[in-house]
């Protein structure tokens, strides 16, 4: 009959299993495997549009995958279960080891083994004639201590020995590494909740105040308090882009994006700043990143009676490398009907053989704006939020372009055109008419920049823990932990035999060389003392 384990017994058994190295290894391998699906299937966190597309492409498969949380792998129950178990296992392993290490740090090196000849790097030497065993060990102790060993001396009638150990930093580093990993997990898991990330598009000349409502989108952490937003203002003064123009292989490739901004902290003087890709602006506790840009043509719609019913620089979203851009204009009020327009903007317009417009260069060489006009119900009055970047055409009637047989409206900067059905006129406002007249369109259309504004108070912690991780790795993997013994035995004839040996604790490729080096240094020291002792005193 086997004895019954009982609840505590089972818990203890379970805990021992969980904290065993075998389980840790198993969980590590599971973690590696569990991370793979997130690279095969688009993730909501990093690629939300990809997920939408995936649902459209695989209508049968996608919902089933979604049930398995395949689109949120890294926050899924199964992925979290693996890493949480792994970290519990890690903590359960590290705590007793820390305790043990503290004891080892206070303990003396163990007694010298009886037979050193069985150990690594065993070396035998003869002590110089006049050195006795006790003196030889005193010197061995000095040599080992100066090499950073912790030493303990053992003397008996026939032999003296010193037992030495070094490389406690190896285990320290090991423990620091694992503790710092826990620190990173906790910081990421809870610390992330105290920050926020917000997005805002600014056209040149526009200003934004850092308040909740001013953001185009805003993702606060769980513990973030909106009222703590620091209401500084950010103005985009100028957005400049430079393009490669020399190298024909990369002609038109952007080589620099620079957003010149002005930041005005509340109640303080404005200060200029620059935001670049790879060069966020750190201001007022937040970081401002430049994540996108494009053109924002200024479009004006005038009612037949001359009233301006719409006038705005509309950000057009880039569709290709040459910045063919797509934008939406909605005019809900002031005209006989609600008006929607889908616009294409070509910074350097060109015509394909098929007659389709395209942009052949991303800078403003020969800008053209085309507009397809829709009339009807824009769907804005129902109070349902709609995207400013899309136009639902179901409830609208197309008036120009496409199958209507009416040509799309095409506008150069500064030009105007009549809207269909006598609704009014639409103009493409030129920012720099004088230069355009001379054929230079480079300043005719405004640009926009899209900024991400982040606040993350935990980054300093992450950097600190990461540094500790690296420190722990270096010391935990590369510092050799070893024991070295030196034993001096007095032979029957009065001469002293010296024995050296070492023991590796963990991977230690240089152990034998280290033992030999200790022996060499020890003999050198003994010889020098002997020389001093045997030299006739000159004083």
């Amino acid at each position, binding site marked *: 009959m086997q004895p019954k384990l009982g609840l505590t017994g089972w818990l203890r058994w379970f805990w021992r299993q969980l904290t065993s190295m*075998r389980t840790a290894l198993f969980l590590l391998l599971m973690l*590696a495997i569990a*991370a793979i699906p997130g690279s095969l299937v688009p993730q909501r966190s*990093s690629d939300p549009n990809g997920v939408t597309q995936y649902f459209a492409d695989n209508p049968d498969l996608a919902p089933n995958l979604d049930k398995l949380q395949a689109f949120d792998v890294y926050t899924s129950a199964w992925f979290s279960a693996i890493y949480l178990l792994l970290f519990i296992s890690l903590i359960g392993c590290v705590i007793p080891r820390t305790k043990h290490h503290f004891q080892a740090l206070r303990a003396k090196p163990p007694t010298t083994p009886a037979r050193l000849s069985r150990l690594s790097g065993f070396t035998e030497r003869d002590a110089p004639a006049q050195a006795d065993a006790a003196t030889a060990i005193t010197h061995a102790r000095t040599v080992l201590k100066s090499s950073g060993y912790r030493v303990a001396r053992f003397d008996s009638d026939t032999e003296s020995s010193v037992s030495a150990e070094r490389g406690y930093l190896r285990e320290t580093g090991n423990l620091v590494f694992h503790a710092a990993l826990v620190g990173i997990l906790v910081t990421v898991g809870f610390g992330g909740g105290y920050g926020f990330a917000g997005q805002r598009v600014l056209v040149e000349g526009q200003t934004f105040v850092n308040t909740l409502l001013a953001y185009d989108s805003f993702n606060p952490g769980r513990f973030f308090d909106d009222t703590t937003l620091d209401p500084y203002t950010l103005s985009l003064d100028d957005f400049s882009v430079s393009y490669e123009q020399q*190298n024909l292989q990369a002609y038109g490739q952007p080589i620099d994006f620079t957003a010149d901004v002005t930041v005005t902290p509340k109640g303080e003087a404005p200060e200029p700043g620059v935001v670049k890709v790879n060069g966020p602006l750190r201001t007022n506790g937040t970081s401002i*990143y430049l994540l996108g840009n494009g053109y924002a043509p200024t479009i004006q719609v005038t009612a037949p009676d001359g009233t301006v019913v719409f006038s705005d620089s509309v950000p057009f979203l880039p569709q290709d490398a040459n910045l063919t851009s797509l934008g939406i204009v909605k005019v809900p009020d002031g005209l006989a009907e609600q008006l929607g327009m889908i616009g294409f903007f070509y910074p350097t317009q060109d015509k394909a053989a098929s007659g389709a417009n395209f942009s052949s260069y991303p800078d403003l060489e020969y800008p053209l704006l085309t507009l397809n006009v829709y009339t009807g119900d824009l769907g804005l009055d129902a109070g349902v939020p709609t995207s400013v970047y899309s136009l639902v055409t179901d409830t609208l009637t197309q008036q120009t372009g496409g199958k209507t047989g009416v040509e799309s409206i095409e506008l150069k900067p500064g030009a105007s055109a009549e809207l269909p059905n006598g609704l009014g006129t639409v103009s493409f406002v030129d920012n720099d008419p004088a230069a355009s007249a001379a054929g230079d369109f480079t300043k005719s259309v405004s640009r926009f920049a899209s900024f991400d504004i982040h606040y993350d108070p935990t*980054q300093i912690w992450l950097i600190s823990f*990461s540094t500790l991780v690296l420190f722990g790795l270096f010391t935990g*993997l590369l510092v050799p932990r070893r024991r070295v013994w030196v034993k001096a035995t007095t032979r029957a004839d009065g001469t002293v035999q010296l024995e050296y040996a070492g023991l590796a604790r963990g991977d230690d490729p240089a152990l034998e060389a280290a033992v030999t080096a200790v022996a060499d240094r020890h003999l050198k020291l003994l010889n020098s003392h002997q020389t001093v002792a045997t030299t006739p005193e000159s004083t």
Partner: protein
Amino acid sequence: MNLTDSALLNSYSLYALYSAMAVYALAFIAFAIDLARRSSAVGAIEEADSIEADAASSAGSAASVGSTRTLERPALKRPVLSRISARMDNDAALPYGRSSSLRVGVALTVLAWALHLAATIMRGFAADRVPWANMYEFAMTGTLLIMTVFLIVLVRSDLRFLGTFVTGLVLVLLGIAALQFYVEVAPLPPALQSAWLVIHVFVASLGTGMFALGFALSAVQLLQSRRENHVLEGAAAPRGPIASALRLRFLATLPSSATLENLAYRINIIGFILWTFTLMAGSIWAEKAWGRYWGWDTKEVWTFIIWVIYAGYIHARATRGWRGSRSAWLAIIGFSAVMFNFGIVNVFFKGLHAYSGL
């Protein structure tokens, strides 16, 4: 630098690269010949042994027959095999010196490496920046670093027997790079204009170089431990058919599986430290460029997977039952993931790291 100079320098870089590939191919052949020679030398001794063993068994002293006999054979019967390479704990069953083909192989590798280095430097000057901003350049620099790590390690330990693998790997990668990934010199897009390009990518390549060597050592370790097991079995049974079925007779001239495992471990832990740094440097750069330090981008995912696999490898060495062949398999899987991350994830997976135009 003006464009014509740049184009000219780039074409010189290409000539140098193709020359380097040709010389690597020659080195590969020389290393392969060395392995073949080792095999035939081992074969000759085994044959002599078995004749002797037959004679011995017919003389009635069958008890002394066994593989250990090979180890005890006096050196004078095989002068080439007696030279033990210096500085390395070479505990090969049949120590084998440096044959002329091995010397030629190493010399050709050094020559090819010099051409490879010249090609990479010229590409860098042609582009007026570090030569690792797209897949082609990254492959060129990465393989250069694999080779540099190999040549540096050779000074310390005699891993010349890995020459076939290392030159072969570099040749294949350079071939793919030159034929599939080649792009003309182009300026850096703003997203790559950062000091972290220099640090993050360089350290990643260096880590890859370490993992490549660790992979090769682990693979040889697996073959070697298979041979050792056969030898152990052979001690009890007649071993002729097993040894010839194995075909890889040269393994007898290589270090024991335990030595190979230790070497692989030492190289892989350096790789792991470099990889950890790559991951951290990448995070710091990601924060600057994309506004978040970690976002589970496909490349980030695979960098993480590789890190976890090698963490597993290091733990496996401390787990009972996992030392030896099992941990070697982890190192092999780890390097396969590194190659997958470089060759497949960059090209076929959608992600933020894919914007360098290959």
